[in-house]
C-alpha cells in the first residue's frame, strides 16, 4: 500500500479530479497549501497575485515567496501506484517550473472506520 502525495497548481484541481475519477480512483483528499520550490519561479505565473487575490499577495514574504498550491493525497494498493503517478503527471504537466512534485511513500496499514476493515480491503 502506498500513499501518493502530489503538490500541484490550484487551477489544475478540477482536471486532476476528473482524470482520477476517469481512471477509477475516486477516493482522495486535498489540502490548500502554500509552498516554494528551488526558488526558480517564472514571475509571469504570478498573475493571481497581480490580479489582487489577497491570499496570494499575503504570501509574498521576503524570504522565498510562497505560492498557493493544492496538495492531493491518494492511498492506493502497490499495483495502482504507476497509474496514479502517470495520471497526475499527464494532467498537471505544463512543462514550466512550478508544476509541482509527486511523492510516493510507503504506508503500513489503513482502516475503514465504518466497517473496521483493515489493509487492502479498507482502501478497495
Amino acid at each position: 500500500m502506498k500513499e501518493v502525495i502530489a503538490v500541484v497548481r490550484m487551477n489544475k484541481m478540477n482536471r486532476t479530479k476528473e482524470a482520477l475519477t476517469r481512471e477509477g480512483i475516486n477516493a482522495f483528499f486535498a489540502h490548500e497549501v502554500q509552498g516554494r520550490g528551488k526558488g526558480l519561479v517564472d514571475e509571469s505565473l504570478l498573475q493571481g497575485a497581480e490580479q489582487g487575490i489577497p491570499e496570494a499577495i499575503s504570501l509574498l514574504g521576503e524570504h522565498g515567496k510562497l505560492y498557493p498550491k493544492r496538495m492531493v493525497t491518494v492511498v492506493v494498493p502497490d499495483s495502482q501506484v504507476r497509474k496514479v503517478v502517470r495520471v497526475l503527471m499527464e494532467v498537471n504537466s505544463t512543462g514550466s517550473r512550478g508544476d509541482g512534485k509527486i511523492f510516493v511513500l510507503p504506508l503500513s496499514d489503513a482502516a475503514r472506520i465504518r466497517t473496521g476493515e483493515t489493509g487492502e480491503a479498507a482502501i478497495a
Partner: protein
Amino acid sequence: MIMVRAIVRPEKSDDILAALMDAGFPAVTKYSVAGRGKQRGIRVGDITYDEIPKTVLLCVVNSEDKDFLISTLMQAARTGEKGAFGDGKVFVSEVNEVHTISSGAMEGGDTISQEETAS
C-alpha cells in the same frame, strides 16, 4: 529520500522558512492545522483550549541531509533558551519516489523497477 513534517508555532513559521532557505533547503510546503499535544491543550482558568492552531512545514530531502535539516528546524522553531511546551514536533517518514511534474524526472524508485515506469 525522506519526508520531514514539522508541526510548529504559526508565528515561528517565517523565521523557520528563512532559516531553511539559508541552510539550503528552499523547497517547502506549508499548511495550517489545529491540534493538541501531550499537555492536553492549554488550560486558562476553567477553559481548556485543545485545538491550538499550528503550522505544518513539509520538506522532502535526501536521506543524508536528515540530521542537518532537523537541527536547523529545531534551532529555528524553539522558543526561548531551552524551548517551551507547544514548540511542536518533527516527524520523519520514508519516501520511495519523487517525481517532478514539469520535467517528468524521477528520483528514488528503488522499490519499483524503472522498466515498469516506462511502460
